[in-house]
Each structure stands twice: as C-alpha cells, then as structure tokens.
C-alpha cells in the first residue's frame, strides 16, 4: 500500500483517533489567493460568501482572531503561516499566529472549554481503517474535549449522518449502501466546513537498510513502529544486522505519557501503546481484524459478542491475563482523554453526575477466559473498537505501580527505562503469548529498542547519517526528499497515512458561526500551494475527510467532484 511517488507529510505530532489503515489516490484544485478589491464586482465567489456571512452576522470587518499550532513541526508551522497570510489578505480578518509546545497544545485544544477561545487551531489526525473515525473525530459533538473536535462544532443533520453510518445496520451491513452514505456525509461535511481539511498525511520511515532488515512500513501512522518491528497478525518481524541486537530510534518528540488512558498523541502511541499494551483485537496491514488477546469470538445477537481469551497470556510482571481484569481496566477510561476508546461503543449507564456506573458496563466474565461484551447498539466497527481498550494487570489497577511512570502490559516489548526528554527504552518480552509460525518467530528478533529523543531535525538527520541512530521518522519534507533522492545508502519507506491535517474554525466566535464564512475561508486555504511548497509534493491536498488509504470509501473522482461543487471559486 505504500506510495512513494506522491508521498508526504510528516505525521508526527498528530492526534490519535483509533488504531487502524488501506491505499492511494490524488486530488487537485485551485490555489486560493485573493484580495478584497475596492471594486466589489470583482470579488471572487469565496469572498462574496464571506462578505454575505459578515453581513448576516452584522459583523464589521476586519475580525480579529488567532491561528495556533505546535512549534515543533516545521512543516505545519509553515503552512499555518500561509493560511494566516491568505486570511489576512482578504482584509476580512486580522490574524495573529501563536505556537505552543506539543504537550501543552494538545491539552489546550482537547480541553472541554476550548470553544471559548477565539482561535483557529491547526493539527493532524490519525484515524484508522474505518471511514467513521475520519468524520466522527473532528465533527461529532461528543468529541469535544476528547479527540478531536476542539471547538465542539456540531450540526444536527451531520451528526445524524455520522451516527447512522456506524450504528444503523440498515446502512452499514451493505457495503454499497454504506459507501453511498459516506459520499453524502462527506459532501455535507465539506459544505458546512466546521473544520477544514488541508492535506492527507503521509508517513516516511528513513533507515539504513544494511542495519535494519525486513522492515515494512505500516500503512497508516498510528501504530507504525511496533507493526514494523513485530506484528504476528501481519507476518512482519524486522531484524537487525548487528551484534548488540538493539535498534536505536531517533524520536522527534518526547514521550509524554505512559498511561493508556492518557495517550492522545502519535509519539506515545507509536512507542508505548502498541509496543507495551495489547487489546482483544487488532488490525493487520490490510485493515482486517485479528484476535490479539482474544483467540476467537462469536456474535450472540445484534449487540452482544462472546470473546474467548488466549489461555496463559502473561503480563510483564508475571500476572496472568483473565477476564476479570477487563472491566476494571476499561472503567479507568471513564472521564479520561481516551474515554471514547471504550465508552463510545460499550453499553453502559451513567448516574446523575454523568459518571459511568461501573456495574452497568456491558462486560460480563463467564469464566476466566470467556467474556461477553455488549455494545450500545449494532456497530459497524464493533470488532476493531474492542481492541481500543487495553487490558492492564491488577498491579496497575490497584495503583501499586503508577502507570504514568511504569507501563505494564502484555505486549511483545516491556518497559525498561525512561529519561525525560532524553531516552526511552524497551526490551523484548520473552513470555509473550505468540508461539511463532512460519513467518514470525515467537519473540521479536530485535532484542531491545532504544529511542533517543532528538527534537532538532538537523541533528536527527546527522545522527542517522552518522549511524548513531538506525531509524527515524517525522523528518521535515526537505530532509525526506534529500534522503529519497540523494542518499542511496538509506531507504525511505512512505505510505499514505490514515489521517489528515486540518484546521478547526472557532465556531463560537464572530463570523465563524456562519457556514457561508466557513465555506469561503475553507476555499481560500491554499491547499495546492501547501502541498507543493511546504511538502515538496509529498502530500495530497485534502478537501474531504476520508483518507485515500480507505479506498473502499473514497476515490479521486468523488474527492474532485466534492471539491468542485461544494467549495466556492476563489478567482
């Protein structure tokens, strides 16, 4: 599924929706450059819409606002600057720019009160293999304060379409019906433009192929590192040609979090969530669902599944996995930034304060290895969703060990060491449940993975060239192009990521509450210029939400027609 020709964007520092990914396509369009001319007859369609919107809201131009982003992603800072410029040029807006450190930034935009801020935020999203995540994460009202509807944009009709696409069996049980449903949904989403999509991210792994062997870049960004290292369900197991058997990874960012209920960004997901923790199910490289902690399952009725856990699965601390750990592990998600991982699909009730009532959760242990899980309603993503809730040992549940400092799971790697802003290290876990098959050995070939945290792109590039690190990702587009074109000793593997970069409009503020204004400004985003100038042609411009990777639900014709029909002309 990799596509090195129109590969692109560094997906580092993305928000994380699900754990999942599939393929390729392209979209084109017009660069938006516009200026508010004195002669009103010369206004482009987009500017006319903005003007109408201002008049309807009774707002005097220019409207002051701020565009914010995270400081550590050079590409993103650059394209945010271009958007700022384009909006300023309309003379309808006066836009300031502000940047934050990633951890602070995420907290800021995922705060339930964030809608109060008059800020246009720019960020990336990693969504998975199912079309639902691409639209739900950024446009469903339930995702305000969780990933990733920062300003709490909502529209009744759109919300209903989003919910039906996933929860209405009349729609999701037939592929063509569901596909048509998402065509309509994407069209409405672009017309309303509560958030505007900028480009479809791409993922680039850069490494020395003489050292790191049999590497396969996972399509989609979310769980890339572990999937390449060791993914029994996909038949992938990389190895390293060096005596110490240690892979040294250059991480672009600090690891902010070790507790699965708090992991809301791709760096921690890549290095902690998928290396150390496991859930009942997981995706393979092609987007098929496999059992992880569950060996198999059967569906009992529309909303109930019975899962059979693998027997003898051990945690890194020696505890054995049994079904009674599932409920307390999942209950921890309530009220956390990752709450939707569990409570978006699991049947449950809440008390008057909105707290989840523990006894009401749809998790019933039949015996040590059999559990029945009840969903809120028939769910198109039932099986993969179950895999989003990880299971942790009693030691963490009781708080004897603090999961924010010491992660303990059942995954193929176990935590060894962490030095803030410096080093994160895991070693392979010898008692991992997988017993090996023809393609994949029982334990990972690579004994140890040391992640050096190197924020400066140039230093990380130098470290890779010098052999101080073996593997990195998240380099700026300039560096990626240089590695790809000029450095034959190194391999660049690129795939379309399972997500997009987007901007969220402050819908509670001034003219941004008006859909006409949002459509106008959305059209003005210079997507093609950004793709060419900032990303060196490595990304596809995005107008619609569903990534080309999920090819069963989108294609270039659809994306182009939505772009032509739903966005006003800018010239």
């Amino acid at each position, binding site marked *: 599924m990799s596509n090195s020709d129109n590969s692109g964007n560094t997906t580092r520092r993305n928000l994380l929706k699900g754990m999942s990914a599939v393929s390729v396509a392209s979209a084109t369009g017009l660069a938006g450059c516009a200026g508010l001319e004195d002669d009103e007859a010369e206004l482009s369609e987009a500017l006319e819409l903005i003007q109408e919107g201002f008049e309807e809201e009774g707002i005097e131009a220019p409207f002051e606002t701020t565009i914010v982003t995270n400081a550590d992603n050079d590409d993103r800072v650059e394209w945010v600057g271009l958007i700022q410029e384009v909006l300023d040029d309309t003379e309808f807006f006066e836009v300031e720019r502000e940047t934050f450190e990633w951890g602070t930034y995420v907290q800021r935009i995922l705060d339930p009160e964030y809608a109060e801020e008059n800020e246009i935020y720019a960020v990336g999203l990693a969504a998975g293999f199912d079309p639902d995540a691409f639209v739900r994460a950024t446009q469903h009202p339930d995702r305000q304060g969780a990933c990733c509807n920062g300003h709490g944009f909502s529209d009744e009709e759109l919300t209903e379409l989003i919910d039906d696409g996933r929860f209405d069996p009349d729609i999701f049980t037939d592929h063509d019906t569901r596909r048509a449903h998402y065509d309509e949904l994407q069209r409405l989403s672009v017309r309303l433009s509560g958030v505007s999509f900028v480009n479809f991210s791409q993922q680039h792994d850069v490494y020395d192929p003489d050292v790191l062997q049999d590497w396969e870049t996972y399509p989609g960004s979310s769980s890339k590192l572990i999937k390449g290292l060791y993914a029994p369900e996909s038949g992938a197991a990389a190895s390293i040609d060096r005596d110490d058997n240690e892979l040294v990874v250059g991480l672009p960012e600090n690891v902010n979090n070790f507790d699965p209920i708090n992991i809301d960004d791709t760096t921690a997901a890549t290095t902690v969530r998928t290396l150390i923790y496991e859930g009942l199910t997981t995706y393979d490289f092609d987007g098929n669902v496999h059992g992880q902690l569950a060996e198999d399952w059967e569906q009992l009725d529309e909303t109930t599944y019975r899962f059979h856990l693998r027997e003898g699965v051990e945690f890194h601390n020696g505890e054995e996995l049994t079904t009674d750990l599932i409920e307390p592990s999942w209950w921890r998600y309530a009220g956390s930034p990752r709450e939707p991982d569990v409570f978006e699909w699991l049947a449950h009730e809440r008390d008057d304060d909105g707290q989840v009532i523990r006894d009401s959760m749809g998790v019933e242990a039949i015996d040590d290895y059999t559990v029945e899980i009840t969903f809120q309603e028939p769910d198109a993503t039932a099986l993969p969703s179950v895999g989003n809730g990880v299971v942790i040992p009693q030691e963490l549940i009781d708080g004897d060990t603090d999961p924010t400092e010491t992660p303990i799971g059942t995954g193929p790697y176990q935590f060894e060491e962490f*030095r803030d802003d410096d080093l994160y290290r895991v070693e392979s876990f010898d008692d991992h449940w997988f017993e090996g098959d023809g393609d994949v050995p029982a334990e990972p070939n690579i004994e140890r993975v040391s992640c050096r*945290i190197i924020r*400066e792109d140039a230093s990380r590039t130098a470290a890779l060239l010098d052999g101080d690190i073996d593997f990195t990702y998240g380099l700026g587009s300039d560096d990626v192009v240089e590695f790809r074109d000029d450095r034959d000793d190194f391999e660049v593997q690129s795939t379309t990521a399972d997500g997009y970069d987007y901007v969220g409009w402050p819908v509670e503020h001034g003219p941004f509450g008006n859909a006409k204004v949002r459509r106008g400004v959305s059209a003005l985003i210079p997507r093609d210029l950004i793709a060419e100038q900032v990303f060196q042609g490595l990304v596809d411009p995005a107008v619609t939400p569903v990534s080309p990777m999920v090819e069963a639900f989108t294609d270039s014709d659809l994306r182009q027609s939505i772009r032509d029909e739903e966005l006003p002309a800018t010239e």
Partner: protein
Amino acid sequence: MTLRRYVLKRLLLLVPVLFGVSVITFSIMHLVPGDIIDIMIGLNPEAEEQLGDQLREEYHLDKPLWEQYLFWVRDAIMLDFGRSPILGDVSAVIASRLPATILLGAAGWIIAMVIAIPSGIYAAVNKDDLADDVSRVAALLGIATPNFWLGLILILVFALWLDLFPVLPPSDTHLLAPEMLWFLILPAVTIGTASTALLMRIMRSSMIEELNKDYVRTARAKGLHERTVILKHVLRNSLISVVTVAALMTASIVDGAVVVEVVFSWPGLGETLVTSINRRDIFAVQAIVLLVGVAIVIANLLADIIYALLDPRIRY
C-alpha cells in the same frame, strides 16, 4: 580598607542585588497573561474544579502579594520550586540536569580562556602584523557566527565527514566518562567560540593600552627581559578588564547553552528551559531563571574579588 573588609562589603551588597533578582523572577508569575493556575490546570481536561482553589492555597496565591513573595523566597531558599504539572518536582529535575549544563558551560569557558588569553597577548605584541590581522578576522567571524549554525557545521564536518565524534552523546554512561568528555568537545567549542572571540579582542586592546604606559618603558629601560615585561607586568594589569568580561561571559554561556543543548541533544537545563517556556510551565521557568540570575551575580562577585587581588588599588 583591607581585602577582608572589601570582600565583606561586596557580600553585603549582594543582598540588594539578590533581592532585585528575586523580585524580577517572582514577578514572572504575575506578568504572564492570564491566571497562572488556569494555565496550569485550566487546559487539563482531567482537572477538577476544586483543584484550582487547592492549588491556589498550596502556592499561597490567595494571600496578598508581599506575603506571596515571602513564601516564595522562603521556598526558593529551601530549594523548593514547587511541582510542575508536567515535570513533577522542579528541584529534582534541576538537580538531575544541572550537572550537564555546568560541565558544558565550564568546558566552554575553559576553552575560551585557554585560547583567548594567549592569542590576545600574541596579537597585542605583534600589533598590526599579519598575526594581528588574522586574529581580528577570526574574532569577527567568531562573534558573527550564530552558535546553532556553528554547532550544525561542526557536526557536519567533524562528526559526519571526518567521523571523529559521535553526533549524539553516549547514552549509557555518566557525565565524566571519557567518551562523554570526548563528545563534549564540539558543544564546548560551539558555546565557547563567541566568548573566545570577544575575550581575545578585550585582551588585545587592554594589553596594547598597558604596553604604552610609562612603567613598561621603565621596565624595558632597566633591561628586563621582554618576556618578563609582558608576562609579569603588563599581563597582570591587562587582566582586569578581561576578568570583568569573563564574568559577564557566564551570562552568554548560559544563554548559549539553551541553543547548543538542543542541537547536540545534550541533557542539560537549557533544553529543559526551552521546553518549559513552550509549555508555559511557569514554576520550572522561574526556578531556572532564578538559578541563572544567581549564577551571574555570583560570577560578578568573584570577578570583583579577583580585581582586588590583581590590583591592590581597587577598594571601592
């Protein structure tokens, strides 16, 4: 005034200076836009409402300003800088990162001294010769080169092309291990370059000034060896201005560390400061700024004392 009295007086003078430093650092908390507690917790979705009041009480923010200041100073003297929401115990973080920064700064400082003083003397003695011109151009380049750029160029040339150094500091060793000290050379040169250049120019000009004075003529006239004249008489007198600059260099080395540590992934305080500023992590920023301020004050105190030792006439 005896030397002892002079030192005592300087020490007493520290009190108002440190008071000033602490007031300025303390006010960072009140100068940042918005409420500090809101910044700390307001954007944390997990934080509960009463947490704000609890924190306000814990950090005495519910008290009048002067009381807050006194509490803060008391805590600072006890080396308690509060708990940062991200880093945890600020003092512990500083304690773990400070040694690396001190080592880097000291190495940069030593490099500056070792290179600047002899080359400054040489340039002064050979005034208007080729050596002087070369040193002038070198100094200009040294001052004009931004240190992050210099760091990257040094990595490119000495680590990548010549392969003499690793690009990253060794990860599994202590600070004073030989491979760590070897790695330290490039960042130390990077951080020391601008100071070297400045110091060399100061050394040269004050040396030239001294060389024109009467006592030099006298010394030469009485037949002293030129070497003795330079090293024994002139050098000592020209060092006074060098000492001042060397003390002030502490400041430029500290702010150089901020950039250089990021480029070389050096696990010191500079890197923490950058991250903390970006995170709006006020307690960490306050603690580091206070530390830097105190370090500079102390460096200046040492400079004053060294003056007095070098020139017995100095007793203000």
